[in-house]
């Protein structure tokens, strides 16, 4: 276990360094800079612009900028966000928890629902339930995330106005609510984006879980379990499921980059103030330090996600712990 963690940590550092380098190269190769058009303040005088470039080090040789940037990132200094007029770390500190809340809720729900759906399907293979749910799951599996988000909004915020259209809190009433009222307000705003993500991720997990269970059902240990006289339910829950759950956890780990992408889009549709929104607005305003930081956080989340998946797989499968 300790070696697994050490290897993962080393890999994480390498990945983050690669991402930092790619992002640095892309931002500096791209045409323009944050001061080419000063959003909200009108055109800048050329001399003023030069002064700004010099002040933030954009006039230095590219190699020097790169070294300076790597040193700052390594020290945890993420710089100043021009577009938000606050330190990047502060902008992240408000956005990251929001994304984690949304993704965490969706992931936990999807794991539970997806594994359960896969179990029911595999237990009643080729029945009407299996076929019907497979069809429904395929539809959600094929659905564009941002479009489902829009359709959820259309159905449950406009046609049936049950949930708020967007945002994370009620812009007017939130201030006047008590502690429980505020929690309820947040929960109401969380329902639609979290449901959208849950439907999409559940479909992917259930499809995989069903296939993994059917694979495991053909294995020798399943035959042994049946041969010693266990009931079908005991075989499925104690042997087949136990052996197939590892691949599902690994899949979720591998899906992490895609999940992050989905979260970016769903956040954008519902104006959920998380990483996705932060990243897209940082790119449109050419806020390089914020762009870079968002990319690095994205990479860190990916690496941490797949590391957690690895550890959970090892917990579920004692054979992996030995190594």
């Amino acid at each position, binding site marked *: 276990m300790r070696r697994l963690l050490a290897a993962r940590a080393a890999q994480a550092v390498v990945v983050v360094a690669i991402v930092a380098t*790619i992002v640095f190269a892309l931002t500096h190769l791209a045409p323009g800079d944050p001061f080419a058009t000063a959003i909200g303040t009108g055109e800048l005088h050329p001399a003023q612009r030069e002064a700004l470039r010099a002040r933030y080090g954009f006039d230095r040789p590219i190699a020097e900028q790169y070294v300076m940037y790597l040193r700052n990132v390594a020290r945890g200094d993420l710089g100043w966000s021009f577009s938000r007029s606050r330190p990047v770390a502060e902008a992240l500190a408000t956005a990251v928890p929001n994304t984690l809340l949304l993704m965490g809720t969706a992931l936990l729900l999807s794991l539970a629902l997806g594994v359960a759906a896969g179990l029911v399907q595999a237990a009643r293979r080729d029945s009407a339930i299996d076929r019907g749910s497979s069809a429904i799951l395929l539809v959600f599996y094929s659905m564009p*995330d941002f*479009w489902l988000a829009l*359709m959820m909004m259309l159905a449950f915020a406009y046609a049936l106005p049950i949930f708020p259209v967007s945002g994370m809190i009620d812009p007017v009433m939130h201030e006047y609510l008590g502690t429980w009222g505020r929690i309820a307000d947040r929960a109401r705003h969380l329902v639609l984006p979290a449901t959208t993500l849950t439907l999409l991720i559940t479909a992917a997990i259930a499809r995989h879980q069903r296939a993994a269970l059917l694979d495991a059902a053909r294995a020798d240990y399943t035959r042994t379990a049946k041969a010693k006289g266990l009931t079908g339910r005991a075989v499925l829950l104690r042997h087949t499921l136990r052996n197939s759950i590892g691949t599902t956890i690994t899949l979720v780990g591998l899906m992490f980059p895609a999940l992050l*992408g989905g979260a970016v889009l769903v956040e954008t549709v519902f104006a959920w103030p998380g990483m996705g929104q932060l990243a*897209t607005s940082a790119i*449109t305003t050419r806020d390089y330090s914020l*762009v870079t930081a968002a990319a690095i956080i994205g990479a860190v989340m990916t690496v941490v996600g797949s590391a957690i998946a690895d550890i959970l797989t090892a917990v579920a499968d004692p054979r992996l712990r030995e190594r």
Partner: protein
Amino acid sequence: MSAPLSEVDVAATTSRAADTGPWRLAMRRLRRDRVAMVALTVLAVFVAAALFAPLVAPYPPNAQPDIVGLARVAPSWSHPFGTDIFSRDVLSRVIYGARISLGVATLAILLAMSAGTAWGAVAGYAGGATDAVMMRIIDALLSVPRILILLLVLGLWGNISLPMLVLVLGLTGWFGTSRLVRERVRALSKQDFTLAARAIGARDIRVLWRHVLPNALSPVIVAATLGIGNVIVLEAALSYLGIGVRPPHASWGNIIEDGADQIGSAWWIALFPGLAMLVTVIAFNLLGDALRDALDPRDERRP
């Protein structure tokens, strides 16, 4: 008199040999798969509509006949999918959008599969240190969220042309394929027929091209079919964010973007292009699943 007879014999043997070949077998299994045939028909209809868009679409995609009187008209006989805020016919835009969405995705997936196959084949065939280095690079690239790179490149470079969009989508989508191909090539290069080809003096490039690659292609075909749906959705997502396909080109993604802020009042603008995309992606996924079953040599349930 004996000549025609022997010809018949030859014809009979070759046709029998062809019938049992792996590709023929797969095609026959596929033709018997009703779901796959329905999916294929749906895709054929969509591709035909895209190709013959000027004949099929009731209006030109960018015509704005009456920006005041005909804007945001609900679906009706003259506008089955309604009109958008500029009075453009949504059905016509969805049909023209199919050209861009299907075209961009197809070209991008072809590029990705070629790049992935080339990289994976070289790594798998070379083995040793070359393989290790090439695959570590893939590990690193796979851990970077693709949407992040796409957001960066497309967002920072601003107005990007369609060929550039294809290039960017293709070059960020081949890492998984290269792993797949590498595994197949590694397994195949240890087989007897590869050894035999090398024993009679075939050069590496010939062995790889003529003997190894044709046998490694089936997972690539399945991955391409399943992957094309992903690329369609990805392109739409980028166009929805305003950094993929730019106006005046209609793509399914940017039609949805046009409708996104009208969702409460003119729901049809975002609904129909999304449905078109959903049906297309479902069809590609069904076809991909069917191809995987048809190409699976272990599956002996069906002849």
